[in-house]
């Protein structure tokens, strides 16, 4: 019986081809765009995550207690060497960093900068900072006084690759520290912090300049499995090695990023809701109209013994049939669009880098498809469309045969 009803529903849909097409088209358009929007948004947030983690944060960091609240040259982890040894034994990549403020001067211009002393060889195993050099070269053993500077530092001080840079600061022992450094490279946009004030140098040069002979301020750790890997085992390893120091995973280090990932579903859901509100109005309207047009037919069917439940079923099935057509179209269009632009839509010709919570992201939109991103809008569409058909279907199911046949 229900097989025949389905056939009836399918025929009813094709009786008004234009109307069915427009209704289905509206549904498909909304769902396809939602798939594409979702893919772009997730792609963007993922991109933000990888670039924030890959450039600076890594997966987990260890600091001496209190350092993060009050970064001070003296708040060191004196046992950092041992911690790093233990970490490497447990199979994760780790590197240490030192930070200190200085006044940097070049050619009558000066700026406050943040010196960052890194272990250039091991930093490569933990972050991709060495790939972010826009001009010139990365740090090298052969050039102990060579530094790579943030792009705004370079602009502010008028620095070019090969220029000399004077830095003045106060060393850990209280003496005035100064040194002449050479600009080996200039970073492209990395993060607000690094761009505006970063001067990255070899650890040894940092230690000599600021008289910090042992220990470090920060240990950055990365799972060898890549940036998308879960961090629980890294946190475990870090906790085992860190002793009394503070161990924090990236969601704590980049809380805004974690929040964005957490709320991206809600944001997408909200947009989906608004778009589908419009779709539901269209479907509701179309279904109601087609039901009113055919009241007489329903009356006849009922007089012939078709039950209200079966009529209800037919009307809902009609909407469902249109939703299924729309779903197939939307899936094809949405996934197709996302794949066609998989290499990224590069807006950098007309738009500059975007700065979100200190993360600097180039304006390249790369859609990233996931099962949830593709299926979510489709399933929601089918459910909403069926809900929109309930009232018209009830109207049809509950019609009194006598009234309907008389045309009232």
């Amino acid at each position, binding site marked *: 019986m229900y097989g025949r009803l389905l056939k009836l529903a399918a025929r009813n849909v094709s009786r008004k081809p*234009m*109307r069915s097409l*427009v*209704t289905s*088209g*509206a549904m498909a*358009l*909304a769902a396809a*765009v939602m798939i594409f*929007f979702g893919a772009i948004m997730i792609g963007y947030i993922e991109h933000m995550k990888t670039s924030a983690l890959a450039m600076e944060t890594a997966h987990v960091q260890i600091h001496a207690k209190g350092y993060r*609240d*009050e970064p*001070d*040259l003296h708040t060191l982890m004196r046992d950092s060497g041992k911690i790093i040894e233990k970490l490497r034994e447990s199979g994760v990549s780790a590197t240490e960093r030192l930070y200190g*403020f*200085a*006044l940097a*001067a070049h*050619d*009558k*211009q*000066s*700026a*406050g*900068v943040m010196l960052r002393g890194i272990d250039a060889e091991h930093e490569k195993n933990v972050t991709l900072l060495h790939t972010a050099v826009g001009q010139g070269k990365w740090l090298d053993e052969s050039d102990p006084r060579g530094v790579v500077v943030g792009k705004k530092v370079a*602009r*502010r001080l*008028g620095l070019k690759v090969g220029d000399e840079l004077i830095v*003045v*600061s*106060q060393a850990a022992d209280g003496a005035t520290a100064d040194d002449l450094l050479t600009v080996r490279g200039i970073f492209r946009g990395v993060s*607000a912090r690094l761009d*505006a*004030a970063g001067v990255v140098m070899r650890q040894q040069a940092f230690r000599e300049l600021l008289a910090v002979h042992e220990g470090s301020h920060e240990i950055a750790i990365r799972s060898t499995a890549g940036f998308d890997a879960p961090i629980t085992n890294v946190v475990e390893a870090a906790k085992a090695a860190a002793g009394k120091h503070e161990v924090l995973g990236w969601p704590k280090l980049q809380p*805004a990023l*974690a*929040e964005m990932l957490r*709320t991206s579903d809600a944001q997408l859901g909200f*947009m989906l809701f*608004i*778009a589908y509100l*419009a*779709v539901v*109005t*269209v479907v509701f*309207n*179309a279904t109601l*109209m087609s039901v009113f*047009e055919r009241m007489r037919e329903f009356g006849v069917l009922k007089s012939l013994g078709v039950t209200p439940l079966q009529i209800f079923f037919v009307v809902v099935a009609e909407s469902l049939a249109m939703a299924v057509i729309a779903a197939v179209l939307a899936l094809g269009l949405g996934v197709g669009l996302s794949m066609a632009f998989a290499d990224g839509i590069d*807006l950098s010709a*007309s*738009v*500059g*880098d*975007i*700065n*979100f*919570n*200190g993360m600097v992201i180039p*304006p390249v939109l790369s859609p990233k498809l996931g099962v949830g991103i593709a299926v979510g809008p489709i399933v929601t569409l089918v459910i909403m469309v069926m809900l929109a058909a309930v009232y018209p279907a009830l109207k049809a199911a509950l019609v009194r045969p006598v009234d309907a046949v008389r045309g009232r």
Partner: protein
Amino acid sequence: MDLVRLSWRNLWRSKRRTLITSLSVAGAVWMATTFLGIAEWAYNDMVGKSATMGFGHVSVAAPGYNDDPSISKRIANAESMAKAASAARGVQAVVPRVVGQGLFATARKTTGGLLLGIDPKRDTAERNLFVKKLEQGTALLGKDGKVDDGGCIIGARMAKTLQLELGSKLVWTATDVEGEIVSEVARVRGIFQTGVAEVDMGTVLLPIDKARRVLKLGPEAATILAVFNHEHRASAAVRDAVSKAVGPGVEVKTWQQTQPAMASYVQVDRASNEIFQLLIGLVVAAGILNTMLMGVLERRRELGVLLAIGMRPRRLFALVILESVWVGLLGLVLGGLLVLPWAYFLYSTGIDLSGMMTEQLEVGGVVFDMTLHLRLADAHYFVIPFAVFCLTIGAALYPALKAARLEPIESLRVLD
């Protein structure tokens, strides 16, 4: 004309359908106003915050300063230039500022950052985000209204890191115009908190006259003139006016040029918002198309009669389009009535979403306001109704065409 009256009458023959269609149109107005208005408010708020952090909506600087900022590239006659600029059309205020880099130290610690020379009399809360966000102390003005020459204002994070309180001494060091390193002591008179870590860590405000003297800039000099106008969209026009008023020899730039990160965000967000609005519009149009088409097909017989008694297809086409014009106008009126109280509520009270977010959101170096408000640019008052109206007419094209192409004989055969 007859056609106009006829179309108006036709509208009321199927009251429910007319109502549903005009409500769809009204819904589109409501949706576009809400989304575009909320975004507009956010852009204006963020650009305004960004502008009050230093460069203004429009900034005037010495040639080359924007590419390679240095205090030696200064405007020597900044005060008279400021006077000239404030007379330009659309300018609300002009504030001369000295922007440089410095090293800030106490006996215990040293940090670096931005040195901002401000005129406390002109840099009011409205023109200066740091003054607006003061948490402790005052804005470098004594009780007698005199500028506190030996004072400074610092960010909360710097205060914490350097362990400074109101009244503490801070040593600031910078290079003067001749490239000599100079040092001065200032007492902390105010502590601000903007919420952006880098800014709260590395910004120190000094009285501009002090900065002029110590850095040997000259008594009337400034590195930039920050020009303010009432909204971010008007900045290009204001730039041109200011440029004319101050004459050649300086660079006049808009916030888009001096704050490119903010400009990028606004551009991308605006584009994606408009695409989304277009999508909603198309879906709404599909609904209107359906109802209009229904209306035509239902009246096939009647329209066939009209054709049979000599009505020209072109006039029939016009009739259906006129009906959609009425529906569009009705929808706009309904939409206006619907959106007015809602827009006023958003404008005056807003919706506070801060409870839903545990972290603040920072875009382009300013904190995103988690209370949604609404603001419409002048262009919106025209663009939104016009776009929605066009959408309605556009949706009626196919049904109108269908009506014009009816075959009288076949239409008359249709059974009711």
